[in-house]
């Protein structure tokens, strides 16, 4: 029977249930052992499974991923934690070259079932190196999958799907949502298949495509427009690679107008790919250009006045929706 969990608790529940189900699943990373992780995600896991299956590593992101790849080649399903998504840049080569190309270069004789959990995103006064959104780098690199849940339900269901997936999966958990997002999560196996979006709100006038921490402000903006008589489909991508073309096209065919909202920077953020794809395949359906509202092309500053100036919010999203409706 379902219970109320935070996003963080849902992630932990997925880890625990998968570790109980499959002895090949183990966790590695910095401070993930007895300490339970910088954010507490892995708290209690050592107590149940021992340090053999949930252990601290040296500060060596590249080795954390490289070791995971080696273990995966022997049939294990490592779940590696980057303490902050920002530090994934230190493991970049192991991810984009070692893991992403292995199956291809092996002629299909092997695969790399690893999950890299990375707490991403800002709005937590994290500053330049504790707020990053690295998804686009990995969406661009063939051979990887990338997911970014926005609800406790999806956080659990997508992590289970990622752990069971035979490919390297970058699992972006938004740190702003850890304790702020709460919701009912069923016991046991509710898998959220990688590659499927969720329509969070229905409307016939506009399509808003987003994910992660931008879902809630997007829904609020959509509600405001509803009060103005404009109804918006709000699509939560959940999976960024692969992304759910069918769901996007179905909505765009209905509304003929689409806005993409993301916290990652605008230039070559995933909005660029979605926009280009919609145009390529649904040009006739469009009554307005696909528009993007994203973080400006800069870094994430610490001071609240600065960070808030950069983050999309219900006001800026509502304005973007109005522009789109008025086009």
């Amino acid at each position, binding site marked *: 029977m379902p219970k109320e969990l935070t996003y963080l608790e849902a992630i932990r529940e997925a880890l625990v249930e998968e570790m109980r189900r499959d002895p090949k699943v183990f966790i590695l990373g*910095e*401070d993930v*052992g*007895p*300490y339970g992780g*910088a954010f507490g995600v892995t708290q209690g896991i050592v107590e149940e499974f021992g340090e053999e299956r949930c252990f*601290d*590593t*040296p*500060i*060596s*992101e*590249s080795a954390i991923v490289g070791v995971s790849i080696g273990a995966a080649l022997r049939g294990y399903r490592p779940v590696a934690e980057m303490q*902050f998504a*920002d*530090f994934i*840049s*230190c493991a970049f080569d192991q991810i984009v070259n070692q893991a992403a190309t292995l199956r291809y270069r092996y002629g299909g004789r092997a695969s790399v079932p690893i999950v890299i959990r990375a707490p991403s995103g800002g709005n937590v*006064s994290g*500053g*330049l*190196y*504790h707020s990053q959104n690295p998804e686009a780098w990995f969406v661009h690199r063939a051979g990887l999958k990338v997911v970014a849940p926005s609800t406790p339900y999806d956080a659990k269901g997508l992590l289970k799907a990622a752990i069971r997936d035979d490919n390297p999966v970058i699992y972006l958990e938004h740190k702003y949502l850890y304790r702020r997002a709460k919701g009912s999560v069923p016991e046991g196996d509710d898998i959220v298949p990688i590659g499927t979006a969720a329509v969070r709100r229905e409307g016939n006038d506009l399509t808003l495509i987003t994910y992660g921490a931008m879902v809630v402000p997007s829904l609020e903006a959509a509600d405001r427009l509803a009060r103005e008589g404009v109804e918006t489909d709000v699509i939560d991508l959940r999976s960024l690679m692969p992304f759910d073309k069918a769901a996007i096209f179905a909505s765009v065919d209905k509304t003929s107008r689409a806005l993409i909202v993301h916290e990652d920077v605008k230039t070559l953020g995933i909005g660029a790919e979605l926009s280009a794809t919609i145009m390529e395949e649904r040009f006739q359906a469009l009554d307005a250009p696909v528009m993007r509202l994203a973080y*400006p*092309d*800069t*870094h994430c*500053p*610490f*001071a*609240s*006045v*600065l*960070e*808030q*100036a*950069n983050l999309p919010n219900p006001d800026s999203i509502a304005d973007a929706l109005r522009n789109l409706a008025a086009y």
Partner: protein
Amino acid sequence: MASIKRTKFKLSGEQLLDMFYWLKLIRAFDERLSILVRQGKVRSGVYTGIGQEAIIVGTCFDLRREDYICPLHRDLGSFLMKGVEARQMMAQMFGKSTGLSKGRDSALHSGVPELGIFGNTSMLGANLPVAAGLALTFKMEKTDNVVVAYFGEGASNTGDFHEGLNFAGVNKLPVVFVCENNQYAYSVPVEKSLAIDDVADRAAGYGFHGVAINGNDVLAVYQSAQGALRRARAGEGPTLIECKTYRWHGHSEHDKAFYRTKEELAMWKSRDPIPTFTTYLQQLNMLASEKLAEIETRVSSVIDEAVAFAENSPDPDPLEATTDLYA
């Protein structure tokens, strides 16, 4: 190679009192920061160096303005000794427009070229190749300026540590590498991240001298730093000084540090560098109680003034969220 540990040195009474002042000021700055975090006035993850002050004081004491330092997250004191005003550092921690980064950062990620201070990213070890690059220019210019680069024992497990120290060794660069071995990397005890007793032993892999010393003894640190600086200035290449120490507070002010025992903490608090040095000065009759009082008043007035300055400084202009990206 002349022994680093047995380097002869001479310090005037004035210099010794100066050292004492710095120990007290740096301690006081961090202690005030800790309070400001609890008061919610400083909102970033503050990493204090309380208990480790002797390392900064002993290694920075003889540096010239032209010399360069490459501090890490716990080394706020080195900014002060290298010439940044306490008020500006405090404004930086408050994220105010008057801080080094104009409010974009509330940590030590911002540098001051004219004072020879490099501000690293959060990525541990990433300052070490940069330190080698700075030192390379001193060598190219045939000056006898040096670079002093700091890192924790945990950071000594990063790839950048290896690449940076090897580059410095191969090119015999004027760098002093200072390892602050405070026994923990966040929650991870040193024995879980290194299989050796002394990080100093790693220097042998790079062709230069490494020593492990008592990092809580400011005179011992100063003595070793003297030897290492002399060698660097003389073109004899890098030295690695490992300073055994301990941080009294948690990893950050948010960390309760349950991973260590109160006995361990008590043992290390009994090794507090300040009383030891106070006793030394008093035995030499250099620190009469008026003198001590005078220094303590000076210290608290500097800190009070710094906090007042920071609190009264304006928040950054939101427009600064996107400026200063390109030159």
